[in-house]
């Protein structure tokens, strides 16, 4: 299953095309984007950092789990570097014969990314300050 880290803008259409085929009856594209606010602060951008050599393998592992559990085809990519408001930081494409499998596979991948993928984000605020966000302690295996 394709999964990788990139410092380039995400091509979500191409990602979706990777998973769709003649047997596809439903395809879900999830896109996470940088929003302009968090916990009352005005966010002007986010810098994403990854342990890239590990994160690519973890992303592929998560996608393979989703494919096995839900009978879907999955592709996922996470961006690193400086992102502005509205830019896509993560994209997940999931395709299956029926919509329930595609939705569940997509949801599985983003939830596992949140707790396992070695990626960190530093929010930048309109007052010039910046802060690494607290996240989840990374775990080795799926918890489900």
């Amino acid at each position, binding site marked *: 299953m394709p999964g990788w880290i990139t410092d380039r803008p995400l091509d979500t259409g191409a990602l979706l095309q990777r998973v769709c085929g003649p047997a596809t009856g439903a395809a879900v594209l999830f896109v*996470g984007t940088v929003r302009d606010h968090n916990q009352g602060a005005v966010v002007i951008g986010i810098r*994403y*950092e*990854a*342990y890239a*050599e*590990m*994160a690519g*393998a973890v992303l592929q592992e998560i996608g393979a789990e989703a494919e096995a559990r839900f009978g879907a085809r999955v592709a996922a990519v*996470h961006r690193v570097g400086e992102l502005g408001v509205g830019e896509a*930081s*993560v994209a997940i494409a999931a395709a299956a014969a029926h919509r329930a499998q595609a939705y569940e596979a997509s949801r599985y991948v*983003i939830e596992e*990314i*949140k*707790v*396992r*993928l*070695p*990626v*960190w*984000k*530093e929010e930048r605020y309109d007052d010039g300050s910046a802060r*690494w*966000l*607290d*996240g*989840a*302690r*990374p*775990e*080795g295996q799926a918890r489900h």
Partner: protein
Amino acid sequence: MRITLLLFASYRDLAGTGSVTLELPPGATAADAVAALRTRAGEEPGAVHRLARLPPRPALAVNRRHAAADTPLRDGDEVALLPPVAGG
């Protein structure tokens, strides 16, 4: 043996570096590598104060796999200290 210790994001900021080479005795574990980092930081003014903010048992990876603190190390291993992750 010689291992490479990698630090990311907030941990790198605390350590002031993203990569440290450490000499460890045979039989050392991933936890020993973290302890050696703290000891080494103690020799640099200011660094030990910042590293005190590292959690006592940070999440670890050995050779790019999530790993327990008692994982034994071998010469050439790559150990990474992983702050709480925040992707997406």
